[in-house]
Structures are given as structure tokens and as C-alpha cells.
């Protein structure tokens, strides 16, 4: 009953360091997403993917990269971390697009602090 699993749960990075947030889902969903949640700001879409080998930018893609080599995995890479990337990151997946009313299933979040 795993659903969407993301690691690590907590991480402290120094300015300029890079890291990858891992995300995997076991529901065979085609769509996967990365969101960030800042206090009082709701969730903002960073990147999304409609299937293996296909990715696209969301609202706030700068400073991030993604890849989708398999249906299950959708890692998010932070290059040259900046304090503005301090946030809670959520990976999510859905069987189809939200434009056809599909429900998005979220992971439990990764708390990232850049100092």
C-alpha cells in the first residue's frame, strides 16, 4: 500500500550544493508531478510528466531539473541550491491528467532547508 514514496524526508543543504529528491510510485500512473509548498502560498507546480521520456515545465521550474526514464520514477534535481529553494517539496502522481478530472495522489513531502 505504498502509493507515492519520496526521499529524503528532511535535508539541509549549503548554498551552491546540489541534490536529488527521489520519487517513486507503484500505482502505474502515467502522470507525475513535483510541487513546492511555501508558507501561506499554496502549492506551485515545478515540473510534470505525462509518461516515460516526457517532461514539461510548470509554474516555477527555474533552478530545477527532472527526468522520467521509467513509469515509476520521477527524480527532481536541484542545481546550485539557493535560500529561495527552502521549501517543502511534494511528489505526486495521477492515472490521467487533471484536465480530465483525475485525482492527484501525493507523497508525504520532503522538507528542504538551504543555509
Amino acid at each position, binding site marked *: 500500500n505504498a502509493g507515492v514514496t519520496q526521499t529524503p524526508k528532511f535535508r539541509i543543504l549549503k548554498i551552491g550544493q546540489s541534490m536529488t529528491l527521489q520519487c517513486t510510485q507503484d500505482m502505474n500512473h502515467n502522470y507525475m508531478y513535483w510541487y513546492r509548498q511555501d508558507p501561506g502560498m499554496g502549492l506551485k507546480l515545478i515540473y510534470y510528466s505525462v509518461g516515460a521520456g516526457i517532461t514539461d515545465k510548470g509554474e516555477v521550474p527555474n533552478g530545477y531539473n527532472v527526468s522520467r526514464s521509467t513509469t515509476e520514477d520521477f527524480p527532481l534535481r536541484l542545481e546550485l541550491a539557493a535560500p529561495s529553494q527552502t521549501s517543502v517539496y511534494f511528489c505526486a502522481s495521477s492515472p490521467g491528467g487533471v484536465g*480530465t478530472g483525475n485525482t492527484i*495522489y501525493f507523497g508525504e*513531502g520532503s522538507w528542504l532547508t538551504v543555509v
Partner: protein
Amino acid sequence: AQSVTQLDSQVPVFEEAPVELRCNYSSSVSVYLFWYVQYPNQGLQLLLKYLSGSTLVKGINGFEAEFNKSQTSFHLRKPSVHISDTAEYFCAVSAQFGNEKLTFGTGTRLTIIP
């Protein structure tokens, strides 16, 4: 483009009292509407969604919401709240047959007072 406004950032309610969390949206096209709940230190999970049909939608944990197209609203209600309902609630909208963007409101923190 779509936008969502949640009018109250915090709502304190006594246990067993009714609650309404307000959500208004803006869109030039037809939309789908969602309410998600986030319990402390957890991810979001779906409470309910409106796709079509009856404007009154029932969800999990006794919550319901009513879609009002003329007022562009999708308010969430529960007749009697419990301590376990303490959480943050997010309203979200997507364009029907549009791009893959789910636009979230800024959230309403519901605090239940014993």
C-alpha cells in the same frame, strides 16, 4: 488561466459546531473543482471533487461541498466537526480538457477548539 481564492486563512471552530470553508474561483472556461486536506506533517489527500452533475458533492469524513456556477464558488461544509478535522484545507481548480495544471488556493487552516 484559472485562479482560486480562499477567503479565510484561519478558521477556529468549537468541537461539534458546523463549519464552512469558503472558496471562489475564476476561469474563462469550464472547470473541475477539488478540495484536498493536509493533516500535520503529511501530504495532501483528496476530500472530494466536482466534475459534473449534481452540484452537491459528498466526500470523505462527512464533508460536502456545493458548486455554484453563478457565484463561482465551491464552499466546503461539515455539520459537526471533530478534533481530528484539525488540518489545512486546499481548494483547487483545473480547466476542463485544458493543460495539466491544478491551481491551488493558499489554504485554510481549520483549528478545532475542544
